[in-house]
């Protein structure tokens, strides 16, 4: 479980772009998901992120998140049914229950729960996509420009984690050979057995940390100003991803500030499409991000694109 990264090389466009541009793209999706509560706007962003997941070949990684957001949607419907009694379109009225009284399940509560479920799914997918397309080394190399100590701690830790996980398995096996049975005993005994494990692994790893520090010092770490080497050229694709993200977020903030994206769920669902120009905005916001998805598709299917972008 801890021996391989979630990242997997799949030769997708987003994996071959500048990490800062990809971060910006994902941050824009995340921000817009939290900015809007209007179903149409969320739907536009949702379509974009699903397409981005598919063209990045990250679908299997994202599947578990789907079930999680379904649970959230159900939970929100329950919470809203229990505590918000202002929904006017009652679908089902329960018999009188002890403590709770009569419960009304309203269309408003169900719609709200469903839309928030979609919102939660967008947020989850933005993180899942980040996990699938950004290699931790790349992002740390970007951050090491302005925060090299923190980036160093992070990359050291990322590097060591699989090794420590293997050590832990080894120690566990050694203990099992000597008769410690981790699966048996009451809670207290089991906790004690695992605690020994923790102590052993802590002491052995700490000894290792001093060796790392000495090795770094021997290679002149911290002896003077730091030099660095930038490995990521900025290519047209990074520019397109960046521009598309900035354009989309600008449109989103404008639409929100002008009040086009306001939507009421209670006491009665608002109309989805009021007047014509207001309806165009969600489409425009999603359309601005479409070039990223198209490029991702082209990266797979039109090999001649690769050399151009």
């Amino acid at each position: 479980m801890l021996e391989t990264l979630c990242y997997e090389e799949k030769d997708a466009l987003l994996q071959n772009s500048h990490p800062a541009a990809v971060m910006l793209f994902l941050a824009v999706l995340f921000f817009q998901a939290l900015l809007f509560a209007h179903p149409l706007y969320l739907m536009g962003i949702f379509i974009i992120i699903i397409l981005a997941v598919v063209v990045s070949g990250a679908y299997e990684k994202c599947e578990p998140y789907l079930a999680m957001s379904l649970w959230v949607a159900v939970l929100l419907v329950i919470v809203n049914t229990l505590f918000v009694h202002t929904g006017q379109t009652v679908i089902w009225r329960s018999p009188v229950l002890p403590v709770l009284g009569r419960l009304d399940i309203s269309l408003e509560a169900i719609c709200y729960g469903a839309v928030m479920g979609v919102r939660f799914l967008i947020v989850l997918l933005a993180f899942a996509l980040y996990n699938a397309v950004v290699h931790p080394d790349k992002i740390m190399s970007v951050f090491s420009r302005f925060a090299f100590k923190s980036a160093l701690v992070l990359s050291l830790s990322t590097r060591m984690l699989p090794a420590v996980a293997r050590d832990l398995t080894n120690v566990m096996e050694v203990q099992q050979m000597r008769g410690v049975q981790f699966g048996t005993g009451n809670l207290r005994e089991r906790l004690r057995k695992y605690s020994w494990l923790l102590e052993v692994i802590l002491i052995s790893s700490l000894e290792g940390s001093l060796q790392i520090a000495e090795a770094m010092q021997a290679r002149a770490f911290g002896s003077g100003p730091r030099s660095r080497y930038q490995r990521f050229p900025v290519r047209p694709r990074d520019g397109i991803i960046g521009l598309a993200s900035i354009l989309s977020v600008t449109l989103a903030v404008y639409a929100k500030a002008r009040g086009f994206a306001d939507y009421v769920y209670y006491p009665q669902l608002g109309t989805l499409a009021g007047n014509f120009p207001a309806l165009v905005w969600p489409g425009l916001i999603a359309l601005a991000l479409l070039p990223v998805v198209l490029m991702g598709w082209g990266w797979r299917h039109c090999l001649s694109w690769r050399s151009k972008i």
Partner: protein
Amino acid sequence: MPASQNNIPVRLLLFLSLAIAMIALLLWKYRTLLIQDWGLTATLLIVLALLFLYLGFERSAVSVREIGVIAVLATVAAVARVPFAVIPGVQPTTFLVIVSGFVFGPRAGFMVGATAALVSNLFLGQGPWTPFQMLVWGLVGVSAGFLGLLAPRTGRIGMSIFSLVWGYLFGWLMNLWFWACFVQPLTWQTFLATYAASFIFDTLHASGNIALYMILGPQVVKVLKRFQRKLVFTITPTNP
């Protein structure tokens, strides 16, 4: 480390008042917008808080050995998330972050907590919980660090109470964002409902913390203190 942390209480006060002033200012400036968009505001505040905490680490004079030890403690705290998952509620990461902060100070405590959250999620899966775990575990480390500075002789009982409190606070702080972003309307009833839903898990976490500290706490603190002494030794050149 000790030289740069002499005037901790003054800095702490300064930092706290700055943070409060900043939040108050933001709230006042955007008061109409905020009422609709608590979720976004909460997210923004978390990102800002994390940035400032990292900035503090960046600006400190930290040695190679400290970086190594912080990275290793964070790694062990991250790895420990998996094997202990078989015992419900036991979260050794919180325990390790508390003892690291207690021994190595607030700055190291923050780094251990935040790094453990971020790095373990690189393997277990990132999600919107990542920044939150980073911040909350980071705060666990910071507070344990201040406890270590202000009351270095805190014994087994005191530390157990401290772990208990963080067991609950951890879940409560994690709930806050979910409630602000996805639950509407933001009333006392929905607040209490969200918190009631997580109460059992928080209780398990808190009792797991106490059990771990009771079993392992004093030994681990001793081990870490020994390493701390190793960290600060300096080689004095022999006289010619």
